[in-house]
């Protein structure tokens, strides 16, 4: 059970997708003008990342990965013994794109203002590297399907935390008077830089937690 907790802390705080891994920075800067659209965007990204990672993991495990059975490399689900891992990226993108398209239709129906507010950034989620990043990391780390869904959700949460935090900061920046040449995106990038520096403070947290849980196990045994 605590493995999931460590995974969550790892994805949200330690190597946060936006502020530590620097994935998905373009919507991060684009949508963070005000907190409402930022909330909408984070909701959309969490939805897409969770479902996207889940589907990607399913495809990855049952279709792409060759299974070791009796020493012979054979792929029981696909009767031909071929390793299809090279299809990883293309299939993940296909899944995520269709996922976003589905979301767009649903969102247009559910809340028109949010759809208007997100505008171009909603279809842009397909190209958002954070979403694809989560799926690919899942594949590399050989997470099980449940683990990778959980990791997708956790990294989506990390993205949401960073985005909402950053959008409330940016609303505060508009009130200030940075020098003319720094107004707008330059000052936003500086703030993002400082925020990334702050998140580095959490480095080593997940390892610390692991050792802590081991202590408890030894203590209890």
């Amino acid at each position, binding site marked *: 059970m605590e493995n999931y907790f460590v995974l969550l802390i790892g994805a949200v705080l330690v190597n946060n997708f936006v502020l530590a891994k620097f994935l998905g920075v373009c919507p991060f800067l684009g949508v963070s003008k005000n907190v409402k659209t930022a909330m909408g965007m984070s909701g959309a990204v969490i939805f897409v990342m969770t479902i996207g990672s889940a589907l990607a993991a399913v495809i990855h495990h049952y279709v792409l990965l060759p299974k070791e059975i009796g020493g012979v490399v054979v792929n029981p689900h696909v009767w031909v013994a071929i390793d299809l891992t090279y299809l990883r990226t293309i299939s993940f993108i296909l899944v995520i794109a269709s996922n976003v398209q589905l979301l767009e239709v649903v969102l247009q129906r559910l809340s028109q203002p949010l759809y208007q507010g997100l505008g171009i950034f909603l279809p842009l989620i397909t190209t958002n590297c954070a979403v694809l990043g989560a799926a690919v990391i899942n594949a590399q780390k050989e997470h099980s399907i449940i683990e990778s869904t959980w990791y997708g959700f956790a990294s989506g949460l990390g993205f949401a935390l960073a985005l909402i935090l950053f959008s409330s900061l940016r609303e505060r920046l*508009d*009130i*200030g*008077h940075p020098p003319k040449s720094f107004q707008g995106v330059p000052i936003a990038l500086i703030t993002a830089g400082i925020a990334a520096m702050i998140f580095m403070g959490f480095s080593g947290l997940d390892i610390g937690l692991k050792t802590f849980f081991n202590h408890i196990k030894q203590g209890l045994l």
Partner: protein
Amino acid sequence: MADHLLFPGGVHPKDGKSISFSMPIQSAPLLEEYTIPLSQHIGTPAQPIVKRGQRVLKGQKIAEATDNISAHIHAPTSGEITSVSKHPITGEMLAMTNCIGPAGHMVSSLVITSDGEDKEGFTLMPIEEWQSIDKKILLERIKEAGIVGMGGAAFPTHVKLNPPQGKRPDTLIINGAECEPFLTADHRLMLEEPEKIIEGILMMKYILGAKTVYIGIERNKPDAIKTMKKHLREGIEVRELRVLYPQGSEKQLIYALTKRKVRMGTLPMEVNCIVQNIGTAFAVFEAIVMGKPLFERITTITGEPVVRPGNWRLRIGTSIGDALKMAGGVKDPEKVGKILIGGPMMGLAQFSLDTPIMKSGSGVTLLNKDEIVQYTSVPCIRCGRCVDVCPMNLMPSTMSIQAMKERFDLLEEWHVMDCLECGCCSYVCPSQRPLVQLFRLGKSHVLKKRQRELEKLKAKG
């Protein structure tokens, strides 16, 4: 021990009452000329009913209230109306175009040059035993005498004492707090005319049919509390209030004495309370028992630079210059920084000595240049002191930033319309930012927006 609750926030500004509280009330000498503005009260301005060159007597009605929320205006002395003319734009009857009202805008007004005799011409009949007279007649007399709230708001009293059908106010609160620094008019009035004030209060209680009456007096006026308690009559109670600005504001006073909270956006009438000023009670007495209309009021002329500060019974229409002459002028003209009508916390800064004292002019305060702290544009450092002192529990620091960014929609959402403009936030702001002016700007925009919405509705509706 003050037996009452304390409202949130509030500040303790420099008292400055010691300058003029010991001076007895002097009656002002007769001056040559009085400029009487036509809109001295909340509501539509009065229409003049006299012509140029017409001779009038002291106390004679010279301008009539057009509709219910308005008040008559009477001549302060006998003399001749020197100049009455039409205002070029609005077409109103107008005496002189360059009479500047306390708020600085051009105000149409009548000018009377006194003939020196000061002959009285009261048309109102004095009423001795007012208890047996019907309420309607008393209310009519108050309207006829042109009585308005003397606390500073100048709301016509005959409207306030005549509650709408559904409401039955059970508490009448008499505001003797006078929490505004430097002003001592009410304080002196309480010391010198306690019986008349108590009689006036009883009349108002009778007209309203209120059950309990509280007179709230701040603890920094012990002698006033003693004299008022000495002349007390049954049904009236004197309550000692702790010294805290703005104790005298309506909502805070009601909460302090009756623990009832006036809900936002509603009048004290909602919690069955009516608040009247000490001066108003005295004016009601003079109107009913002595049949004397409101053309005189007690004004404090005070401040460091004034040669002989004191409390004067000034006639309405005396210009600031004449008032200052009475008080012996100023010690050093170079050092004078500001002239205010009203007290230093809510008073209006003036820039010409011709502005007349109106029915609501409770004081003329002068401040030296070194006493004044200029407003600066140092950015808000979010220290939160203004949030601590705001008596209405608003958030002045965030609201001021919203006002600077001209986000008046956000300002309306953050309740700028409930700001009392009492000045506590600007008083404590370490960056010395003009917070009250920003909120007043916000209010004017919000009112303009609501006006536009009203017109759109009318156009559609």
